């Protein structure tokens, strides 16, 4: 009697994600794009720099979203991939005199390989164990970067200074503005790539694994391959973001890539809504502007504010910005129909 009951225990109910829910509609996307193109024309250089960072972190959050929202794996170690990307770009630019734009694909590739290799052992882990392994990776990364052996290239504790690129072809733009549009172009390309990736055969495989690993393997999906692939793609995109970050900040140093960064990116994903790609930019805005405001009130307060807000999000809006967007849409619809 009891044995039978045990066998037929129900699987925990998994919330179904509607097919189109991971992206925005065309109209909204275009409006968003127009805003992103026009805003820099009307603001100061410092704000443009902040907007650049907004896009860069949005990319990093997007990468984490592909991993967690797409394939259902965790990572508290995104800062490590971000750091590797940043260092790859910085070293190539400063030691090998390679054009900044060309360093990005290299950074992406290096991180893809790193992520793919890290995904190999991580593959056998799930849930808390994966969180643990990536957490350890993030905490170990600054020490690895400070290592004496690599000091010739990485600059050790001092880090490396990166020169900011000028606008090409004699375009009449400030360096900040050029970098913003460059970042915007890269971000759009990666966003389109990600949307299409998730719509593709591979993307469906990711989601099948997320929803039910056993069922996915029964359908003939190579679970091991796709799980590591998700890790690799996520790390690769984070690496590109890291490279862009290094160029924008003009500086890389080990202590810029601590566990705090990994926590921020994780927070950005939760706030933006797990599995909702446009939420990445909301999450990114959150992790850039909230600490500024908090530090303005009292130094060292940003961690507490982050933590409290994270708890509020978990308890009140567990689906993050996506939930807010859906509710807003609902109300707008009501208003329109009178």
């Amino acid at each position: 009697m009891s044995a039978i009951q045990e066998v037929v225990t129900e699987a925990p109910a998994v919330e179904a994600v509607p097919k189109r829910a991971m992206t925005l509609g065309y109209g909204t996307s275009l409006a968003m794009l127009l805003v992103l193109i026009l805003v820099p024309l009307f603001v100061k250089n410092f704000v443009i720099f902040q907007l650049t960072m907004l896009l860069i972190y949005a990319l990093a959050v997007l990468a984490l979203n592909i991993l967690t929202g797409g394939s259902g794996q965790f990572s508290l170690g995104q800062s490590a991939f971000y750091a590797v990307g940043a260092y790859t770009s910085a070293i190539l630019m400063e030691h090998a005199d390679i054009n900044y734009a060309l360093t990005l694909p290299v950074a992406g590739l290096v991180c893809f390989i790193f992520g793919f290799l890290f995904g190999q052992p991580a593959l056998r882990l799930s849930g808390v164990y994966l969180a643990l392994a990536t957490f350890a990776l993030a905490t170990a990364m600054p020490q690895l970067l400070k290592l004496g052996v690599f000091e010739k290239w990485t600059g050790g504790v001092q880090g490396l200074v990166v020169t900011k690129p000028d606008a090409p072809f004699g375009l009449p733009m400030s360096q900040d503005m050029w970098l913003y549009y460059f970042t915007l172009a890269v971000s759009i390309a990666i966003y389109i790539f990600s949307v299409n990736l998730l719509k593709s055969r591979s993307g469906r495989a990711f989601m099948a694994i997320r929803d039910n690993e056993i069922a996915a393997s029964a359908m003939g999906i190579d679970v091991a391959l796709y799980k590591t692939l998700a890790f690799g793609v996520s790390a690769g995109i984070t690496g590109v973001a890291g490279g862009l970050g290094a160029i924008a900040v003009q500086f890389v140093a080990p202590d810029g890539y601590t566990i705090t960064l990994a926590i921020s990116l994780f927070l950005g994903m939760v706030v933006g809504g797990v599995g909702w790609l446009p939420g990445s930019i909301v999450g990114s805005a959150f992790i850039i502007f909230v600490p500024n405001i908090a530090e303005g009130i009292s130094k060292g307060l940003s961690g507490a504010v982050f933590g409290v807000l994270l708890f509020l999000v978990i308890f009140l809006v567990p689906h993050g910005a996506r939930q807010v967007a859906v509710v807003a849409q609902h109300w707008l619809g009501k208003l329109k129909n009178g």
Partner: protein
Amino acid sequence: MELFTNQVLAGIATGAIYACMALAVVMIYQAIDHLNFAQGEMAMFSTFISWQLMQWGIPYWGAFVLTLAISFAAGILIERLLFKPLAKAPILTNVAGFIALYAIINSVAGLIWDFTIKQYPSPFGSSPFLGSQLISTHQAGMIGITVLLLILLYLFFQFTRVGLAMRAAASVPESARLVGINTSWMIALGWGMAAAIGSIAGMMIAPVVFLEPNMMLGVLIYGFAAAVLGGLTSPFGAVIGGFLVGIFENLVGTYIPGVGNELKLPIALALIITVLVVKPAGLFGRSIVKRV
């Protein structure tokens, strides 16, 4: 040989701290199947509380006992307020909760006591232990406290009703509820005990690493490594794992050239990944078989 014995003893001494930390990690893992990423920060905060009590003129052991009591209560409070509502939530939500707790405690400690490092007294002094040059009295004291703690926990879990109830609640919650055990409160009790054990680890390591808000990050990672090595399901394994990790860390630092203090965390990382890949259940843990 002299150097070797010396390093092994020093390893056992630091291992005692990792053992305490691992014990705290395992206590919560047993209760709710999650790793508490904020465990180290909770311990750090407790240590600051004891430091503050001493600043107010309370003698060391008085502050020690008071801190244990405060940590225990705080652990229960955190569970009741923040994590009880998340009991049925997915792993992601729980991890987010722990990360949030981590950020809050770290930041609040910095706000109250700022980020400068502080001296922390040792109750055992730092003279050579029993006239030998190998370990100091503080190191000997750390080992003694850990062993004592382990014995007390063993007695508690084996011979008291509450201990038995906690074990029952951790291994078969449904059946435990049926025989009238309040499993929800057993979990809260586990949190309280973990917080108290963590505070002991904090107060023992503080004289060695100095007191500051980020002091526990390395210890926590090693605590995780120890817990994973010993097996996340076994408190005894966690303690053995702690000692092994401590010895391993010291020997690697001494005998492998190029690995100094600067590689402490990467060693822990390598250790965690190796164990998880080679023997996920750890040395003493039982492997979990899932029915599908």
